[in-house]
């Protein structure tokens, strides 16, 4: 009876109340930021005395915001491509292969996901200082790739595990070369895994703050680092505008994932 919603009696309303309040609590900051970015008060008073596009104009007028957004995008795209390629090759090895320490190796590849990011950030910072990669695009790409690769391996491996290898073997029997069979039969079949890997890798790189703080230099910084640096000085509504754009991108990507999943299932 506790697992039947209609027979919960007045407990039903208690559960419903807590759930709706929690949902409101989770939504509050996101809606609040979006509203704030259009508010005319520089002191972030809510509700604002009026509405304006001023903060978006300031955001787009400042070349440093634009530049950091472009840097973020460039890094995220490179990381996405490398992460999917490396994830694909690695997943084939992990799923199809049989060699010693396979499970241990898989665990090692996933460790960056559970390690406190600050430890990795500090360690890479020290390492890159020595080998001259600190504050470079390469440094950014490498450090973001360390964090994105586990997501890629997880998505692609699980797609590959769900794929029946005998279909690929059948293609080979019908005269395709092993590589051709992989490209024309297996890849399309696991495309949903590749797509999730790409989206997760992109978002991981695009949203990464902690490692980026340590990687950045005065001349090269990503959008989150720019937000971080601005926030430490003051709470200007320009940050609200930048945040709203970041949130918008997340919503678009999430919707895209949902749509692609639906299409691929059909």
């Amino acid at each position: 009876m506790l697992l039947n919603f209609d027979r919960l009696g007045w407990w039903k309303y208690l559960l419903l109340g807590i759930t709706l309040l929690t949902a409101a609590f989770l939504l509050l900051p996101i809606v609040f930021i979006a509203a704030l970015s259009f508010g005319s008060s520089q002191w972030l008073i809510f509700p604002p005395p009026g509405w304006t596009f001023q903060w978006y104009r300031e955001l787009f007028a400042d070349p440093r915001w634009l530049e950091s957004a472009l840097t973020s995008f460039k890094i995220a795209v490179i990381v996405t491509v490398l992460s999917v390629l490396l994830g694909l090759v690695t997943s084939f090895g992990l799923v199809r292969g049989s060699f010693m320490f396979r499970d241990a190796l898989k665990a090692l590849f996933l460790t960056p996901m559970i390690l406190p990011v600050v430890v990795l950030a500090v360690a890479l910072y020290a390492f890159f200082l020595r080998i001259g990669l600190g504050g470079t695009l390469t440094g950014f790409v490498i450090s973001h790739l360390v964090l994105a690769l586990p997501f890629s391996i997880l998505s692609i491996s699980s797609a590959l595990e769900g794929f029946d290898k005998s279909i690929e073997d059948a293609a080979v029997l019908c005269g395709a070369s092993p590589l051709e069979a992989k490209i024309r039969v297996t890849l399309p079949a696991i495309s949903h895994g590749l797509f999730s890997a790409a989206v997760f890798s992109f978002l991981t790189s695009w949203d990464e703050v902690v490692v980026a703080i340590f990687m950045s230099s005065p001349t090269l910084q990503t959008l989150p680092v720019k937000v971080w640096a601005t926030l430490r000085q003051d709470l200007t509504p320009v940050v609200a505008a930048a945040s709203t754009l970041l949130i918008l991108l997340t919503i678009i990507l999430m919707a895209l994932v949902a749509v692609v999943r639906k299409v691929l299932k059909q």
Partner: protein
Amino acid sequence: MSTFSDASGVVTPLPKIRRPTGFSGVVPAFAFVGIFFVAPVAILLLRSVLEPVPGLGNYAQLIGSSTYLKIFANTFIVSGLVTVISLVIGFPVAWALAIMPGRLTSVIFAILLLSMWTNLLARTYAWMVLLQRTGLINKMLMGMGLIDQPLALVNNLTGVTIGMTYIMLPFIILPLYGVIKKIDPSTLQAAALCGANRWQCLTRVLLPLAMPGMAAGALMVFVMSLGYFVTPSLLGGTANMMLAELIAQFVQSLVNWGMGGAAALVLLVVTLSLYAVQLRFFGNQNPGGR
């Protein structure tokens, strides 16, 4: 000869010698992770016992100072509070989601996922503004007549706890939902038939059945909270540092690699041992921590 017959004449294949296959596929990733993940972390940890002089001096200093001990205490207190509050709020929500009908459930799931994937800085910035003295929360509380003067909700551990709980809620609700969804409703019917009232059903059947999920989720939230950097440093004051910030400060402002490495090792050992407990008792879960 690759087969042999046993006494009954049945031909059984000899066990094949298993040759390693597919290893070449993992070599690039292995090299990459080795050079840019394992080596840097190992070097950092080594420096904690080598710099400035070889020995355990850094660790003695870390344990011997009341400032650092206070930071450890802060970290564990905040993480513990965040875990308990997330559990108390998260359990009823997960329960409701598991049994609620239709459309509302999918709306709430969408909200959960949206908040999980929204940029961490954007969310933290929102709380910085919401929790200010002149912020919306204080204004609302004063408007309702609950308080006369604005509360100090930010730049202290209260702010960190609120901001971190906000971040962790989806991470506890989603696994708990999975656990409650799997519970067979007939066990509760049986309890009711045997004369248990609603409260007894909850405390003696539902909660114990959900316990493994609660423990696993709580442990995950606790571990993730221990290592957070961004939210504590923006919502907490300079007087209420947490462990991740201490590591960053050793390295960035003090350029003390020995102490930075030592603090990192402490965080790493606590994190990995709690994950080992998690794996041993509750199986694998996929977290993601910033």
